[in-house]
């Protein structure tokens, strides 16, 4: 089993605050990895480090190494712009652009200079299909993305990310603002995508982590407490802290 990421001694600081503490972890290729843990334990910070979105936060500082398929993502040759095209991100709240559905999905391709109408059409359709949104929007691609429901908007954001053909999808609580139906559809779609790309998902929902993921990492106060295969972790957590957290959330 190959690794998409090999992370060594990652530390993230905001001003004086030590948000991620000496985390080392290997994230397997084309599987779903779930990140769980209480609010404020550094899950989002950890996730943002992987496509260098943290670089955009003033006053944030990092130490440690992140290898993506063996290559250090911070080496001077690696541009964060190319990196982010290869490692896509979906956020907690759906954040479509105030453009049409089509223009939302086409955005990432257009900024790379793709102009050809036929290719754009084809790539947009393909991305919407992969995000399981095509049947619902195929007759209204010119309509504003804001006219879609929350769940549809989130799938649109996934389609928009998939359009540039990323190798990794980072999702930060993508279902937090969705109802059970919307959540189920996203989970279904992630399970399909898993065969093609590496998925890392932050979630507060233990059932979701258990249903979806192949491996799980449990964070507590900035530290990675336990990391392992999902079944093992949920059946026989090795560490008391993990057991308490998981038990607490299953009620």
């Amino acid at each position, binding site marked *: 089993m190959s690794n998409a990421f090999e992370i060594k001694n990652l530390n993230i600081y905001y001003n004086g605050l030590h948000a991620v503490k000496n985390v080392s972890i290997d994230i397997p290729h084309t599987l779903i990895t779930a990140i769980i843990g209480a609010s404020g334990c550094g899950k989002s910070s950890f996730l943002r480090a992987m*496509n260098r*979105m943290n670089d*955009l936060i003033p006053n944030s500082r990092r130490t440690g190494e992140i290898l993506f398929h063996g290559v250090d993502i911070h080496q001077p040759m690696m541009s964060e*712009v*190319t*990196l*982010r*095209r290869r490692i*896509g*991100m979906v*956020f907690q*709240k759906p*954040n*479509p*652009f*105030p*453009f049409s559905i089509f223009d939302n999905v086409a*955005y*990432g391709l*257009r*900024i*790379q200079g793709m102009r050809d109408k036929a290719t754009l059409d084809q790539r947009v359709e393909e991305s919407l299909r992969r995000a399981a949104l095509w049947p619902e929007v195929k007759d209204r691609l010119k309509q504003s993305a*804001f006219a879609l429901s929350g769940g549809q908007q989130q799938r649109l*954001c996934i389609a*928009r*990310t998939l359009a*540039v053909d990323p190798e990794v999808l980072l999702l930060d609580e993508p279902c937090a603002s969705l109802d059970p139906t919307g959540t189920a559809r996203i989970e279904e779609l992630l399970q399909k995508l898993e065969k093609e790309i590496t998925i890392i998902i932050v979630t507060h929902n233990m059932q979701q982590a258990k249903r979806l993921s192949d491996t799980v990492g449990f964070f507590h106060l900035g530290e990675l407490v336990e990391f392992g295969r999902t079944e093992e972790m949920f059946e026989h957590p090795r560490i008391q802290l993990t057991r308490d957290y998981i038990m607490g959330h299953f009620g």
Partner: protein
Amino acid sequence: MTSATPGSSHVKEQMVGWAFKLCGLLSLFVTVGIAVVLFAEAAHFFGEVSVVEFLFGTEWTPLFTEKHFGILPLVLGTLLVSAIAMIVAIPLGILIAVYLSEYASARVRRSLKPILEILASIPTIVFGYFALLSVTPFLQKIIPGLSGFNALSPGIVMGIMILPFVVSLTDDAMTAVPHSLRMAAYGLGSTRLQVAFRVVLPSASSGVIAACVLAVSRAVGETMLVAIAAGMRPTFTLNPLVPVQTITAYIVQVSLGDTPAGTLEYRSIFAVASVLFVLTFILNMLAQKLRASFKFTYA
């Protein structure tokens, strides 16, 4: 001793409420009053001059013996100067706003905004003399055929004058675009330039267009600058190198002159002022509609 029983404080509240309402009504009355006087005097004018001649005539010679009341030269003069001002103010204003909202650090922002506000607080008559005495002579060195009074020089200076206004409104519209959209754009591998011009600016477009419309409205209504530097000769032309007269400059000319009240010339300023009023009113309504739709997008 306190007499603030719940009852009396309630009465006070009500009185304060009424006072505010009165202030609001007063401003409404003043506006309506101005419009009524304007249109009433204009109605007298149209008793003697046909509306068709007024709106479509290409000669404006109310102060000559042979009088013509075709407003088009004044309208064209106004539009010409305003258009030149817009060519300067809109691209420059948007670029500065993009810089301020997407590139400048908080410190640069804090020091640049007051400078722009100082520019906005200079009296317009100063800009007028600046155009007449500095910009026109300078331009004459580059463009030999340029007359002393022309549309070009006050147009450029007016563009600089309304620049802070365009910058400030555009910057407001851009900073109102949610941070989450910038994050989405960066997450898709956008460069900073692409985030600014392909996401933030289009997302703020109705706000930015509203800013431009308001800027046009100000340019159209601007008076002292053009009265001083554009000349007083109503010319039916789009040539920026020759003297023109704007609607506002004509009103100044007649108001300052010794035209007796009640004459046709005197009433003509109410007719042209009505046109100006309607024009700026429409522009402001349009801007308000655009801003409302912008606010609605990100409510």
